[in-house]
């Protein structure tokens, strides 16, 4: 068993990416996961297992990053998926509220929350800048707005009912991102 690190740790075993979220998953540490996941998907990885056993909560941006992974794994002929393990009641409610329980495979058969154990030999490494308690460099403003917009668009693509929930946020962010584009990225 590897040491549990605060933040987001990842391990690649048998062409499956194991993601462990310890602490909170938020817009502040969603970007490192998004970048890593996109790189792995580009390399042909089709299965992601996200362990939420140590996850104290997720904001909508982080959930939108996970949704983006699920959507990308199921488009352009891909047949991959995101499996979410050790969900817990609180996080399950979040996933259900946003309709993500239909996009992900949840390890919660018959209402039982199975405790996830990584495969033997799995070596986890923490993604840089993913431990919120250790963040010491300023978050990039433009990068964050882009991430939040993409993440919430993913949530709306996953379930149209999310449009009502996030329309004010996405229109605010879109205006901000469009304005920045028009100004030649002065804001970045």
């Amino acid at each position, binding site marked *: 068993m590897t040491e549990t690190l605060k933040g987001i740790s990842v391990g690649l075993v048998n062409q499956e990416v194991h993601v462990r979220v310890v602490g909170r998953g938020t817009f502040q540490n969603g970007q490192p996961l998004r970048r890593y996941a996109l790189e792995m998907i580009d390399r042909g990885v089709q299965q992601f297992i996200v362990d939420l056993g140590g996850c104290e909560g997720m904001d909508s941006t982080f959930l939108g990053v996970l949704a983006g992974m699920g959507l990308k794994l199921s488009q352009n002929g891909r047949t991959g998926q995101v499996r979410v393990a050790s969900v817990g009641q609180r996080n399950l409610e979040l996933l259900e509220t946003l309709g993500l329980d239909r996009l992900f495979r949840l390890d919660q058969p018959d209402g039982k929350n199975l405790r996830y154990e990584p495969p033997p030999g799995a070596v986890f490494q923490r993604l840089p800048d993913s431990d919120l308690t250790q963040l010491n460099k300023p978050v990039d403003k433009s990068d964050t707005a882009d991430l*939040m917009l993409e993440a919430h668009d993913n949530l709306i693509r996953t379930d149209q009912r999310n449009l009502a929930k996030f329309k004010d946020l996405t229109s*605010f962010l879109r205006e901000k991102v469009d304005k920045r584009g028009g100004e030649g990225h002065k804001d970045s």
Partner: protein
Amino acid sequence: MKDFRIERDARGDVQVIRLTGSLDMYSFPRLETQINTLFQENYYAVLLDCRDLDYIGSAGLGALIGFAKQAREKGGDVKLLNVPERIFKIIELLGFTKVLQVHNTEASALASFAKG
């Protein structure tokens, strides 16, 4: 982590909502219900006292913009008071301070409502 709590108080026509704990996707529906109740009672001047707020998520912030917009259409507003520095940094970073007024004292917040 503190339990999320909402306490309602009034200063004249301004409804003061004191928030304690984490305002995340799990707790946000409670605030949503509270604000919708205020609107139904025709209170559109709402001040959210955030001094005991530990955390605010992106969805919560986004929804506050929507509430502020609704309140402004009725001549009121939703404003923030006593925002802890680490939360203020996030609000500022995301540009929300351009659309949500943030006050450091109750007196300045109440005065801003009085000015309309």
